[in-house]
């Protein structure tokens, strides 16, 4: 959860009086609040944590970090299906029988598959 991931601003708009952006994280796109970096522009990179841009980052540093995170499977941990991950961690069935409407969708396509680290 404390992982903050660099992303590139694709477009900027407004929602409920708040400055919002679509941000790309190595192939995964998320809606991100820009209220804490109000002068961030399209094409720039920022460190994003739980949907909020917190600090600018230069392009080279951002790309290097994204590449490393992809290699280590950390983008999958951050943006993959959390219920699937929690089920796997506990050895439990998922999805639950009683909420078929909430079946998880397919995991987003990411640059690298999650590393198999479980012994």
């Amino acid at each position, binding site marked *: 959860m*404390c992982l903050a991931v660099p992303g590139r601003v694709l477009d900027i708009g407004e929602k409920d009086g708040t400055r919002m952006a679509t941000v790309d994280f190595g192939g995964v796109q998320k*809606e991100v609040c820009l*209220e*804490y970096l109000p002068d961030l522009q399209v094409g720039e990179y920022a460190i994003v*944590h*739980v*949907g909020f841009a917190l*600090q600018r980052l230069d392009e080279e540093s951002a790309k290097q970090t994204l590449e490393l995170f992809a290699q280590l499977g950390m983008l999958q941990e951050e943006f993959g299906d959390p219920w699937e991950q*929690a089920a796997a961690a506990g050895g439990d069935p998922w999805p639950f029988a009683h909420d078929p409407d909430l079946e998880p969708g397919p995991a987003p396509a990411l640059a690298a598959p999650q590393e198999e680290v479980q*012994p």
Partner: protein
Amino acid sequence: MKYIEEFQDPALARRLLDDIHATVTRPWALMEVCGGQTHTIIRHGIDQLLPEQVELIHGPGCPVCVTPLEVIDKALEIASRPDVIFCSFGDMLRVPGTGRDLFQVRSEGGDVRVVYSPLDALRIAQENPKHQVVFFGIGFETTAPPNAMTVHQAKKLDIPNFSLLVSHVRVPPAIEAIMQSPSCRVQGFLAAGHVCSVMGVREYPELAARHRVPIVVTGFEPLDILEGVRRAVRQLERGEHTVDNAYARAVRPEGNPAALAMLEDVFEVTDRAWRGIGVIPDSGWRLSERYRDFDAEHRFSVTGINTREPAECRSGEVLQGLLKPHECEAFGTLCTPRSPLGATMVSSEGACAAYYLYRRLELGTVPAAKTAATAPTAASAPLEASPVV
């Protein structure tokens, strides 16, 4: 240096390591505060690449791990109510409360939802006006500003069915408590980079000067950790104790002024209990009076909770750097990610999880000298013994 080829820039990693090896003349103990840094260290074997004299002590910087059992139990009780949609980050699903976790609440029919951002929880509240929507607000200074903005938005947009279950914690008082502990062996800190992205470094010079301890702001990648260690060791060898920013690409000295202003508006500093550690004065945030209506603890009567910590769990000592995870008798036997005794075994930033995931098959290879050096001694006392805690 058997793992060095795995570094993103092995040549630079080797140069940094060579410099550290050339600089060290005697033993030093450094604490990496952040659990994300702990995972990087164990994943890449950084602790085993460093000179024998440099010991890395794992700190309490995993917000999931330090959230008190009582707060987890309150979350579980609120999440079980039929009129509640309980929203959380995914890290909390497997954190054990007394006897169960949020994953089990959902399996039993509770409406528990995982969100990427706290603003997603606010949207769920807008879409479900007949339900109470509660967001589990845990985290350090990195997560508190997003949660503050969300409560600010809830008030501005008048969304009365949204509330926050707050258990935010702050890093500097934890550093203070660690330094005050009679069993403290820490001589230098690697400060959590993203916390400083928000807060800047203004809270650290006084701490560094008073305790005569170098504080190096450090990032999360393998090379960041090596550079942080290199700068801390240089200071220690020279007898210096200043604040140094080794993560300048993401940390401005002033932090993020807009985020700081929102924190000031929405939260106020309060004492907080840390799981396994105890109460640390001024170590947390709660909603300020203006936003008290959005406090889930005020909105829901959550009383009569009987918490029950497993007696075998020694995560409190792990969080204080008094015990390495594999030195716990329950590690890997009674306590595994599938059946955890404490949050340190399931959190993505937990020290026990890091050792289980990356070191389990290599337990026999942990250098004996370091193992001996980190074992708790008779003089070791938990932080509760400290007068400030």
